[in-house]
């Protein structure tokens, strides 16, 4: 008799607990999801705003750039390197075997016109600006660009050859509007 009562009471109690557990977990889960959703605007407010995003394009006059010279222009807050390469630099860039490259990419895939090398001048390691734009700059072991921050060497196609940077200097989207004007972006 006492046993049965205890068992009955126990069972009833178990049932209660189960229902409560369900409500408890459901409420908890709802709360967590709700909080996560409520948090998103805070996180996203730190992403680039609409005015920052408004994609800018620039048009650059390259008529004054002689063979073997480079210019730097600012695009989206970053420097873009425009180099009019010499024949030597082009043939050197084209002759490298892809197997020698940490980030294999043929020179022809990096240029529209072999003479003009256009790329974002931001080291793919940690974002410094490599040297090599001026004639007097240190150009590294491969005659292209050299990043002084942690010693990355880029070749005459802007490809990474030595040092901590993992990737080649990125090539932005660009169009030649005519022989002397290029639009970047």
């Amino acid at each position, binding site marked *: 008799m006492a046993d049965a009562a205890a068992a009955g009471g126990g069972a009833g109690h178990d049932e209660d607990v189960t229902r409560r557990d369900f409500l408890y977990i459901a409420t908890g889960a709802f709360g967590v999801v709700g909080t996560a959703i409520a948090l998103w605007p805070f*996180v996203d407010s*730190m*992403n*680039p*705003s609409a005015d*920052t995003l408004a994609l800018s394009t620039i048009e650059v006059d390259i008529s004054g750039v002689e063979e073997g010279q480079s210019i*730097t222009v*600012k695009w*989206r*807050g*970053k*420097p873009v390197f425009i180099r009019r390469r010499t024949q030597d630099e082009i043939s050197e860039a084209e002759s490298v075997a892809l197997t020698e490259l*940490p980030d294999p990419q043929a020179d022809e895939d990096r240029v529209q016109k072999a003479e003009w090398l256009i790329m974002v001048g931001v080291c793919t*390691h*940690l*974002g*410094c*600006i*490599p*040297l090599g734009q001026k004639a007097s700059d240190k150009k590294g072991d491969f005659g292209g660009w050299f990043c*002084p*921050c*942690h*010693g990355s060497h880029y070749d005459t196609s802007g490809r990474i050859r*030595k*040092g*901590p*940077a*993992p990737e080649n200097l990125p090539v932005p989207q660009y169009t030649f509007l005519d022989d002397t004007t290029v639009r970047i972006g």
Partner: protein
Amino acid sequence: MSNGNGQSGLVKWIDERLPVFTFMQHELNDYPTPKNLSYWWNFGSLAGFVLVVMIVTGIMLAMNYTPHVDYAFDSVERIMRDVNYGWLLRYIHMNGGSMFFIVVYIHIFRGLYYGSYKSPRELLWMLGVIILILMMATAFMGYVLPWGQMSFWGATVITNLFSAIPLIGEDVVTWLWGGFAVENPTLNRFYSLHYLFPFLIVGVVVLHMVALHTTKSNNPLGIDAKGPQDTIPFHPYYTMKDYFGIGVFLIFFAGFVFFAPNFFGEPDNYIEADPLVTPPHIVPEWYFLPYYAILRAFTEDYFLYVPISWLMSAKLAGVIAMFGSIFVLFALPWLDTSPVRSARFRPIYKQFFWLFLINCFILGVVGAKAPDDQVFTWFEGFQYVHLGQITTAYYFFHFLILFPLLGKLERPKPIPKSISEPVLPGGGTVAAGAAAKPMEKA
């Protein structure tokens, strides 16, 4: 004011409703402190003092500082030239950052030497590591505010570290910047957070103190106080000693502020930030140099990276190692298997401790040099990258291999029965049985 009874009417009235006075009496006056603490135990209170100095000078600077890329540099120069005593506030704040790290690093090495991270002080130690991380974040963001060349390029390099994270790295960096490069949104958020973080530090310091007052201070012998004969009340003994320490420290601090205010700084930071020109040689503030050396020790072509080259890029490896060099401190209480706290009784650990300290200094030197500079003029081909790789390897060897092994292999020297024993015959009143336990978990 003596314990409770001597309280005046008003104090008593308040204390019965909000026991702040009892609390202070208990934690600052009576707090039983081992009687054998050396001057190495001054650096905790010194750190607290510097934190207050940083907050006060920071709030004053904030009244004249403009967080905008077009005005930040000029507003700091205006503080230097036109604001009454602005130069003083800024030089105190600027050198105070360095002082903070000097004090905290000594405080940490004190802990390493005397085993203050061991049971039961694991959480106390881990809270300390959290404070260190918050301090580093605060100092890093503060350094960006004057918007000089080093501010800008330091910010660029360090935020770019996050691009090493697989898959989402680039998005994380854009999110941190609020744009596609370090620009005005970046400066704004760094200012906001630079203001916030010191107050988070205050919060963690409070927890650090709660943990300290629960486990009580360690001491140069690394054994527990066995009773009242081993302790003295905090006030007046250690309050006076701490004040004296602050006095000596202020002479040192003022020496820099008044006579060599730019000693720790970089001349390049007096050139306004130029996003198109990277300075030829980027160096972080001195207190980050060892980590910077660890970051740069991982390069495609050398031994440190080769064993893990199948797993990740050299860049990611460097970033993980750099953060790992700090996070490993969290695990230290469990990596060190020796039950003996103080290095005084650990003849072998003691030597490795000094080796580790020297190694940290060398890492600092490496961090300041260009990677392919020659270390010695007479040893052709040995560059700073190589030295950095050896010292980085030792850094991790010390924590991950040496600490676990030494505890097992080393034979500690006999440990005194109590703090009083070496100076008082019989060590006060400790029962022989209790004192005989050789390696009291103390």
